[in-house]
């Protein structure tokens, strides 16, 4: 069989096209396929109250997609329920990376659930936005991990330092520390004691209690006997509520000028509504409150859209504590992807270490461990709370910011008993 030169040329061209087509087609598909963001959420189990964060991330996805996506690609979320259980985390994150082929990871909620995934991201060299894991990267020291929450550097010691700064300004020298026997509370109590020592304050009373303690009358009476100036409380939602109720019933003594600090619970709408006016006078941490020094049109728009989704779905009605920071996580990812033009972990991490990012809650700059370089945990005091109407917590002046000074929106109401309306 003979073949003409022209026919040979046509055959060669056709063969080349046939060989190249799959590569061209898959490259095209890869460029057009969505950017996949993978995360686990505690939709069930003891941490299920944190699932409101998913709405924050979904709102960010919708905003980005409405604006044309990232690098011209739509953003897609791939999420699983970790059931608030550590044992689920390794397999979920392996599935996200190895089966779902997500481009970027967002961590589970909190330090305990994040801990199993930290060695994984270090070994795989993956970029991860960290969600509320206090000092979550201090052990593994990944250079590709970035906190969305502004705990600040050396967070174990310093995250609640504002409480002691406010106390020092109010003349508090004798500190009592009360903490639940659970992870966050123990870490916070240890950090608080170090911060107090550094500010020249003396710890005169220390007490830990089992989780789910519901009667604090004996502890509060003992505490009153130590005549502290300030009581640093590290508690979880059920005991925070029980303690505040106990405070109203048993009292705390005239010596106390400051009470609170690291109580988890009074950040959530359900707890705020349940406790109502009994919160008055308490100084506690938060990450966002609707004070004039923090509110921007972007935050207001976000919260309006969040509320429209959260209320019918019976999620946290206010959404100040967790949802905005999932939106921030998305903003960090978007900034790094857009600036580097890729979803490559190393490039994104290098860029984020070197550049500030404007977020919903302020400008974030990161140190080598992915902590915000500036601590921006708020110490707020509940003032003028009347009854149990949840809408009052949307107004300015109800959670007055005392620290940090740059965001201060009011003065500490004292003495404590008067601030509580006693």
């Amino acid at each position, binding site marked *: 069989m003979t073949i003409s030169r022209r026919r040979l040329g046509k055959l060669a061209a056709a063969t080349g096209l046939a060989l190249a087509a799959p590569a061209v087609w898959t490259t095209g598909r890869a460029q057009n396929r969505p950017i996949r963001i993978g995360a686990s959420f505690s939709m069930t189990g003891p941490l299920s109250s944190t699932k409101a964060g998913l709405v924050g991330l979904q709102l960010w996805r919708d905003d980005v997609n409405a604006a044309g996506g990232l690098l011209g690609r739509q953003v897609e979320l791939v999420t699983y329920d970790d059931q608030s259980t550590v*044992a689920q985390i390794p397999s979920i994150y392996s599935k996200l990376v190895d089966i779902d082929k997500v481009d970027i990871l967002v961590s589970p909620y909190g330090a305990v659930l994040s*801990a199993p995934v930290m060695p994984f991201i270090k070994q795989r060299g993956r970029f991860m936005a960290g969600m509320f894991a206090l000092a979550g990267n201090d052990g593994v020291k990944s250079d590709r991990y970035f906190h969305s929450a502004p705990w600040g550097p050396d967070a174990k010691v310093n995250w609640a330092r504002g409480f002691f700064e406010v106390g020092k300004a109010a003349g508090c020298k004798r500190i009592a520390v009360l903490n639940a026997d659970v992870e966050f509370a123990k870490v916070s109590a240890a950090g608080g004691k170090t911060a107090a020592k550094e500010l020249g304050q003396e710890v005169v009373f220390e007490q830990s209690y089992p989780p789910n303690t519901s009667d604090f009358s004996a502890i509060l009476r003992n505490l009153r006997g130590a005549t502290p100036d300030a009581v640093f409380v590290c508690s979880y939602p059920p005991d925070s509520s029980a303690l505040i109720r106990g405070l109203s019933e048993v009292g705390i003594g005239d010596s106390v000028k400051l009470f609170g600090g690291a109580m988890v619970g009074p950040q959530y709408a359900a707890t705020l509504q349940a406790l109502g006016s009994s919160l008055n006078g308490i100084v506690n941490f938060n990450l966002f409150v609707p004070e004039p020094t923090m509110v921007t049109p972007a935050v207001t728009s976000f919260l309006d859209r969040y509320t429209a989704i959260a209320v019918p779905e019976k999620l946290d009605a206010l959404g100040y504590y967790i949802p905005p920071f999932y939106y921030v996580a998305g903003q960090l990812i978007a900034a790094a992807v857009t600036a580097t033009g890729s979803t490559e972990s190393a490039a994104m991490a290098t860029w984020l270490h070197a550049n500030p990012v404007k977020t919903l809650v302020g400008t974030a700059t990161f140190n080598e461990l992915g902590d915000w370089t500036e601590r921006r945990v708020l110490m707020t005091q509940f003032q003028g709370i009347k009854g149990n109407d949840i809408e009052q917590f949307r107004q300015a002046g109800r959670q007055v910011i005392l620290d940090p000074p740059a965001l201060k929106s009011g003065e500490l109401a004292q003495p404590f008993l008067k601030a509580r309306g006693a």
Partner: protein
Amino acid sequence: MTAKTSLMTAAPPPAAARAPEARTLVFCACALAVLALGAVLTQTIANPYVFFAAFIIVQQVALATGWNVLGGYAGYINFGATAFYGAGAYTGAFLLKAYGASIFLCLPAAALVGGGLGLLMGYMTLRVQGVYFAIATIALVVMMHTLVLNIDYLGGASGLALMPPEPPAWTGGQVQFVFLVMLGIAVLAVACARWIEISWVGRGFRALRASEEAAECAGVPTFRLKLSACAISGAILAMTGAPLVFYASFIEPETVFGLALALNAIAMPLIGGKKSWPGPIIGAVLLGSVQQAATITISSELNILLVGVVLIGFVAAAPDGILGLVDTLRKGRQ
């Protein structure tokens, strides 16, 4: 004739004796084949997720088998499986933190701790049976949980993050290595359960389950058997927990001593059948696979509901589990 001799020297007729020996050979061959298959899979499957998921399912097999020694064979319902599992997990974590110990040292150490704890529990609950024994086992979980919460060296409430040593190169990676170890533990647990079932020990356990008083009257050494059941079950459950820190690089008390794990340990033999060794395997593979699939496909609320409905269904319709149901159907056909 003493109870011991009645249990130990009841020799079967020679013709019948050959069949169990042949079955034991087949069992050993199957066990080796399972281990070999596991090793081959680590070399041929590149996707690590398979081993992350398989680890959980194989762990369920070991957990169910360990629980079944006391709960199924001896009839002592144990809600405290997590006390032993947690003791093993924290033994592994302690040895890894203190001495950088290999997983192969952690396993026998965990078995010793679990066995000792089982002996202690068996001794302390000497006169307690039925629902009172079950309540006592819950107390053991609370005690272990509280103990760990108050030991700072073990991380207390905060948990403990540890980087395990590098796995042998031939295994292909940490998760593949830990999967193989867990597969070995499961095979060992099943072999142990099978030996109990076909030996005089199993006959003693069955006598305990039927009626402790009647067994005592017939000369069965009930106290020793109860202690043995507690110790063997405790040792297997603790060994099952030991690799956890090598798998997750992290350990914390809320998960390790959690109720979900304890309920799963009970549910799996109930679903599969608790009277013989294949029952817990069937229950664990079924429940473990369904749970893994449900976690990543449907919501976990439905997953938990699914487990509850399946459990209620089996308790109501097939109290002897899948194996019991198959037996009943077979007998009906005959």
